[in-house]
């Protein structure tokens, strides 16, 4: 067994175990931390595939940004030692049956399909190439999705500020508590 295979087994075991714990943990803060482990192991898989830039993006944006956002909002919205009540057995059993059936179907399809790789030589992915392709027009250029995603990010930023802003016509917290 090579070191590569060993690393893959380690990362995939971490991903499977921690994603199951993320969706079953009854303490919400622990669920967020397990999600962090899943995202970091995914970054490790990207390193194994030789996409260093994507692994860095995964670490900074997902593990560094989104999980911190999650933890902040968890601390804002729920008590830290609060435990969820367990899921009803009917719901969990039927969801598990549906999910297992879907997973088995997908895995059978994957194993049945014959993937054929190209014979062309692999391309070295460096930062210069990524930057040039992001802003290039033409066949290997991605300038249109780049511009669309920048408009989306601006819109999301404005929307997040407007929605989360205090005030507005809604009831305040003290009014609800008084009722």
């Amino acid at each position: 067994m090579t070191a590569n295979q060993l690393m893959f087994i380690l990362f995939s075991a971490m991903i499977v175990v921690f994603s199951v714990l993320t969706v079953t943990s009854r303490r919400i803060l622990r669920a967020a931390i397990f999600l962090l482990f899943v995202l970091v192991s995914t970054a490790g898989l990207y390193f194994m595939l030789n996409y260093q830039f994507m692994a860095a993006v995964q670490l900074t944006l997902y593990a560094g940004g989104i999980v911190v956002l999650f933890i902040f909002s968890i601390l804002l919205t729920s008590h830290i030692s609060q435990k969820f009540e367990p899921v009803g057995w009917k719901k969990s059993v039927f969801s598990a049956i549906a999910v297992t059936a879907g997973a088995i179907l997908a895995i059978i399809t994957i194993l049945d399909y014959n993937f054929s790789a190209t014979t062309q030589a692999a391309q070295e992915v460096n930062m210069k190439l990524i930057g040039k392709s992001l802003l290039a027009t033409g066949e290997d250029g991605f300038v249109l999705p780049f511009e669309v995603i920048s408009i989306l990010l601006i819109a999301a930023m404005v929307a997040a500020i407007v929605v989360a802003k205090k005030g507005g016509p809604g009831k305040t917290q003290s009014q609800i508590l008084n009722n």
Partner: protein
Amino acid sequence: MNTGIPLEYFLILATIMFFVGVYGFLTRRNLLTILMSVELILNSVNINFMAFNRYLFPHKLEGMFFSLFVIAVAASEAAVAIAIIINIYRRFITINVEDVDEMKH
């Protein structure tokens, strides 16, 4: 590079992660944990894109850029969703999906 790991292993791993996310989406009752399940689903799709790009089309960069854009969409989605969740918490003092039903009537 990547000797001894077939493409199918990556795909099966992503499939398991995807359906674990779907299970969380079906069983969870807290808005934030539902959002976490959605993040799991999006992340598993990203693994698929990257593995396809590396194994089947190593001379192109389409899969890498697609997962870059998926990450950007996931980040903005999480920001807007958390803003909405905080607003809901301000109105209802809970983020349990079964208690937040005022707009339904």
